[in-house]
Every structure is written in structure tokens, then in C-alpha cells.
């Protein structure tokens, strides 16, 4: 990861050779295309040119790592999941910046997938099986299936025979397609994205359950970043669909654009998190606050 960071630095450095201000750091996890370095270069160059400052994408394995970076001031902005966003922090260390708009709305689903040859038709059929999660701080890939189990009065340790985390959405799909896991939970945005760019793995999976819609994973800013930078970033992102370069980048991300939405967009996730906490306040698999 450090190597990638360094490579990115060398790549971007000549463009901003005259800049003296420190770069703006943008945290990402495997929620999006972290392997596609060329795309991230193009995006960071686009944002850098618009902001007239160097932009660095900081890649981390898990949401927790990114949240830690936000807490410690290691990054200014981050693309995180709705679940870490709704968790209570004292004092609050982040604020909602903008929300991606996907297929006309700032919403997405959680898909419960199985192997395409599998006989499982319902989530309950997966009892006693092996299940793949992506990230313990993910809404669609952990919180939602946790809720499904809770509704049946079960916990992952009792419902599944074995579970594991891949910390990579695409690898969750891969784990199911290669039958390492009998089932998995995956973000609808990621699954649809993979269906276009990696149909070989999505073709071997079948969706057996689609969740109600949730607020799309938002982009947040750290509390303490100066307002000008925050509002400039917000404006640049929300106006990406108005210029050609921005449209191309959005096309690559398969997003319509970014928009301003109220915090209430995440109330469904907030409610689920609350229910889980009440039902099992010491659930071993829940992230500690």
C-alpha cells in the first residue's frame, strides 16, 4: 500500500511541482475501484486541477482504517459506508459532504448472493453454511445480513457454520462464484458494476434476496478542514456532470453524479444499527465504538 502511495506521489508530483500547500488527502477502501490506479490518477488530477491543489487518494484495507485516519487527522475527505457514518462519535469528527447519485437516486441495496448452481432460494436456506462478508463496518455487506439473522433470533456464530471477511467487495463475489462461501452479502452498486466489467464472476452468482433501499455510501469531510476547501470540494464533486472530463469519470464510476442530500437519507441504516445494538449490545462481530 505504501508503495502504491509512493508511486502515486511520483506520478502526480510534476503537475504540482510549484505548489507549496500540503496535498488534500482523500481516503478510500475497497468499496470502489481501488485496483484501478489509472482511474484514480485521472480523478485525482481532475480534482487537483479544479481545486488548484494536489489531491492524494489514500487507500486502506477496511472502513475502520479509514475512520481511524479521519479521527487522527490523517485525511481530509473520505468515501465511507453509511454504517460507519451513522455511528455516534463524541465529539463528532466528520460531516456529510455529498452523496453519489446512482441510477437517478442516492440509494442502493444489499444483495444476498449464492452460487448460480446452488439450490438455495432464501436467506434462511443458508443456515449452517459458509458466508462471506466484506467489511464489519459495511452496511450492505454486514449490517443488513446481521439484521436478517436478528429477525430470526440468530447471530452469525450460530446461524452460519463459518464466516469470513474478504475486505474487498469484488472478492466477496469471487468467493461465492468459486464456492469458497455458500453465500455472501454484496453492495448492489458493486455487483452491477462487476456485472459490466467482470461478468465472468457475476455470471456464476445468483441474487436470492434484495434489501430495501438505503442511502448510498456518502463522501464525508473531517471536522476541522477549512470551510473553503470543504465547500470547493463539494461544489467540484456536485458539478462533475457539467463538464466532459467529469462526465467521463462519472461514466467510469457508473454514477450519475453527486448531490446534496440531508442526513435523514441514512435513517434506515441508523434504525438498523440501533436495533442491532439493542438486541445484542455486546455482539462480538460489531465494531466497537
Amino acid at each position: 500500500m505504501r508503495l502504491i502511495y509512493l508511486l502515486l506521489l511520483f506520478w502526480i508530483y510534476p503537475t504540482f511541482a510549484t505548489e507549496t500547500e500540503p496535498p488534500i488527502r482523500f481516503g478510500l477502501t475497497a468499496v470502489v475501484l481501488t485496483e484501478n490506479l489509472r482511474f484514480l490518477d485521472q480523478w485525482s488530477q481532475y480534482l487537483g486541477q479544479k481545486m488548484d491543489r494536489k489531491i492524494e487518494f489514500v487507500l486502506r484495507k477496511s472502513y475502520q482504517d479509514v475512520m481511524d485516519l479521519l479521527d487522527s487527522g490523517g485525511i481530509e475527505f473520505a468515501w465511507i459506508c453509511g454504517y460507519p457514518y451513522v455511528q455516534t462519535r463524541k465529539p463528532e469528527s466528520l460531516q456529510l459532504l455529498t452523496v453519489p447519485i446512482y441510477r437517478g437516486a442516492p440509494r442502493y441495496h444489499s444483495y444476498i448472493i449464492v452460487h448460480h448452481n446452488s439450490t438455495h432460494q432464501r436467506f434462511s436456506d443458508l443456515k449452517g453454511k459458509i458466508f462471506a462478508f466484506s467489511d464489519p463496518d459495511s452496511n450492505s455487506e454486514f449490517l443488513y445480513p446481521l439484521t436478517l439473522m436478528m429477525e430470526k433470533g440468530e447471530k452469525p456464530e450460530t446461524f452460519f457454520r463459518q464466516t469470513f471477511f474478504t475486505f474487498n467487495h469484488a472478492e466477496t463475489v469471487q468467493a461465492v462464484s468459486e464456492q469458497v462461501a455458500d453465500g455472501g452479502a454484496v453492495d448492489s452498486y458493486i455487483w452491477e458494476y462487476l456485472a459490466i466489467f467482470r461478468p465472468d464472476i457475476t455470471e456464476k452468482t445468483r441474487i436470492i434476496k434484495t434489501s430495501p433501499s438505503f442511502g448510498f455510501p456518502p463522501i464525508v469531510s473531517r471536522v476541522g478542514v477549512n470551510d473553503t476547501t470543504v465547500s470547493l470540494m463539494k461544489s467540484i464533486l456536485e458539478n462533475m456532470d457539467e463538464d466532459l472530463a467529469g462526465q467521463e469519470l462519472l461514466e467510469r464510476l457508473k454514477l450519475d453524479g453527486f448531490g446534496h442530500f440531508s442526513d435523514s437519507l441514512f435513517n434506515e441504516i441508523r434504525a438498523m444499527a440501533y436495533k442491532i445494538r439493542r438486541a445484542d449490545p455486546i455482539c462480538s462481530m460489531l465494531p466497537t465504538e
Partner: protein
Amino acid sequence: MPVLSPKSWPLAIKLSLTITAVVAAVGFMIGAVIVAQDWKRFQDELGTKALLLSEFVAITTPKAMLRKDYWQLYLSLKNMASRRSDTTGGHEVITAMILDTEGKVMAHLHPAENKMDLPFSPGNRIEEELFQQAMSTRSTIVLSSGGFSKTGFQEGVVPIFSDQKYMGVVRVRLSVAQLYEKAKDSAMIVLALVFCFVIIGSGLGTIVSRRMVKPLTAVTQGLEAVGRGEMTDFTPIPINERDEIGRLSVTFNQIMAELAEKKMLEEEIAMSEKLVALGRITAGVAHEVNNPLAGLLNCIDTLRKHPDDKKLIDRYLPVIDQGLHRIKDIVHSLLVGLKIEESHETMSIQHIDKLHDLIKAEIGDRNIDIIWENHTNKDLHIPGKIEQIVCNLLKNAVEILPQGGRVVFCMHQNGPQLVIEVSDNGPGIPSNIRNQLFDPFFTTKTNGTGLGLWVVYRLVQSMEGIIEVMSDEDQGTTFHVSIPVITMKAA
């Protein structure tokens, strides 16, 4: 079919086939050893590779095993397997697995059939044995399917330790399919080389054996020529070598030269014998013809002096007649004998039986008994000369017998020999004249020509037969004739 029997094959072929067979056998043996060693080396190399891959996985897995990070364990197997087949193009990973201390699957390259966190279940007895070996080992080992098979494998087994605590085992199994193809290719090359050696070897073998056998063939042909009695036109065997065959050729050439010389000498002797015999016959004829001629001339002279003496005419005319008939008989006998001697006519053996009646007529009313035994096959054909032989012998016997005598004629086959025996119980032949029996003009009868037995002797000789006489005075005589003339012809 005698041609198909190897015993009747020419020595040159047998020798070159033997050399070819030896070259092929040696070639194939060496080839088989090379192929077997190649295969073993390939297998050993593959085993080492399987072990290296297992070690690579074993080094990177302990932490993931402790955390039960199944996905990382699976990815490490998957990356290892894909790296092997993509980068080296070498050896396909058939299967790979990480098992914990209890034999439960921590990760498997084929997760669909081998679910995580469940005990590994070997498919058959052999797999069960391999599993037990893998679980019991605490040091790195290579397990092999053994044998020369496309479906074989080499498996590297490496136990996993963390802080000297046994945590489980990594098994990586590589297919020998590509090695098998490689070994098959090299076996084909070896086979082709051996084939070339066999062709070259058999070519050389043919040349060597021909060279060796050529003098022997010449010796054989020479000996066959000796058998046929053709010794004079023999070409000496060329001597190229001074080895055993060379020495044999030299000796053979010497023998042949001596035989040719001997043959020439014999021919010369035979020629002079012929001239002597001719002289004797001429002298005999002159003498026999001259004897009556002198009497005849006297008679004619006397008659010319007394042409009107009727008594003289009555006395001398029968004498002249008798003398002229005698001369006629002598000439006739000579002509008949010589004419038949040159004849190559054949006849059915049944003709001989007609002589039975003829000889009965010859006996007339004399009291002579004839016993006739013909034991030959009726379909036999024999030279016409034999009839004359039998006729002369029978007439001879009948003429010599007194009243109450007995003649036995017996004829039978003995292999290619026709055997004729004519016996009588007459007075026998005195021992002092037995040597002259077959001489021309020798006779003991008052009016015999002395040519009957001479003709018999000449005819028997002309057919390369043998005639023997057994006689005791007052006991009788037996003529035994044996002639190699048996030929079968359709009657």
C-alpha cells in the same frame, strides 16, 4: 512349407537377422534405461517443485491460520496455483490444500467439493493412505503416485509450525501429464534413434554376413558339383582373408583341384579301357567270324573244284548254311545289344510278365518248372532295356537246365531300386570261369554266341545298376540285378 522353416533359411539371412536382433535388443535396452532414468529425473524435479510450492504456502500461512482467515488461505493457494500455470507454463497444480491438526480443511483449491472447516474426506483407499501419511509427517515429504502414467502426480507435503507448535499441513499436488508428454516425446526420439541403429546395424550385418558366407556358399556349391560329378569346371574360391574361412577356402580349392585331376585321370583310364574292350570285341568278332569263314571258304573251294559232285553239294551246303547263320547270329546279337543299349524307351512293368509265356514256349515239352514272382507295383514304368536283361537271363537258365530243373524268377522294389533275381538249380558255374562270365564271345554252350551275358552286363552298366552272381557247383546259380530306375507314371 519348408521355406518358412528358419532351419532352411540361408546362413546369410540368419546371420544378418541375428545381428539385427542383437543390435535391436541392445538398442532397446539402452533406450529403455535412458527413458526410465529420464522419467525418474523428471519425477524427482517435479517432486522438488511441488515441495517448493508447498513450502512457499506454508511460510505465508501461519498468521492467517491463527486468525482463521479462510479467504486469505484460499487466495494464497489460488495465487500459488495460478502463478505456476501462468508463468512457467510448466506443471499444472491438480490440487492443493491446507489442513489443520485435526485434518479439517482450512483451504482447498477446489472449495466446492471440499468445504472449509469440515474434515477432509479422501475419495478412495489410496487417497486415504496419502492423507494419513500427510497428517502423520512432521517433516517435509514428497508423495508420489508412482508408475508411468499420464494421471500420475507428485505431491509436496509441508507441515506448518508456528513457534514450534504444529498447526497443520500444506499439500500441493502437481500433475505429471506434461512430464508424461515430455517423456513420451523423448521416448519417441530414443525409439527413432534405436530404429536408425537397427537399420544401420542390419545393413552392416548383411554386408558382414554376406562377406563371411560368400566363401561358404562357394564351398557348398563346389561340394554340390562334386556330388553331381562336375569337378572340372569348378572356379576356385577367391581368397581375401587369412582367417578360418580363408584357410577352409584354400583347403577346399586344393581338394577340388585334386579331385578334378583324379576325375581326368579316371576319364583317361575309362577311355583306354573302352579302347581295350573295343579291341577285344573287334578281335572276338574277327575271330568268331573268321572261324566259320575259313570252313566256308574251304567248302566253296571244294565245290568249285567238283561242281558236279552231288554228294559233295549235299554234304557242304548245310555246312555253308550253318556257318553263314552263325555269322548272322553273331552280328545280330551285337547289333541288338548295341541298339538296345542306346535306347531310352520306357514301358510298363507289366510287359515283363509276358516273358513268362515266351519262356514257357522256349521250354516246350521239356520238364522244367518255372516259378514266377512279380511283387512290383503294376503302375511302374521302367526302361525297355530291362526286358532284354530278364529275357537273356531266363534263356540262359533254361538252356543250361537238365530235365526236371527249376527256374525261379523274382522281381521286387527296394526303395528306388528295382531288384531282379533269376535262380536255377542247374549244375552251377565252375569257379575257374566265373571271371570270364561277362566277357564277349565267352560261352560254354556248343552253339552259343557268348554275347547273351555280355549284353546283360552292358545294359545293367548303362543304367548304373549292379549285377551279382552267386553260384555253387551242383547247387545252381542266382543272378542278382539291382537297378535304380523306379519312376512312377500314370498307367
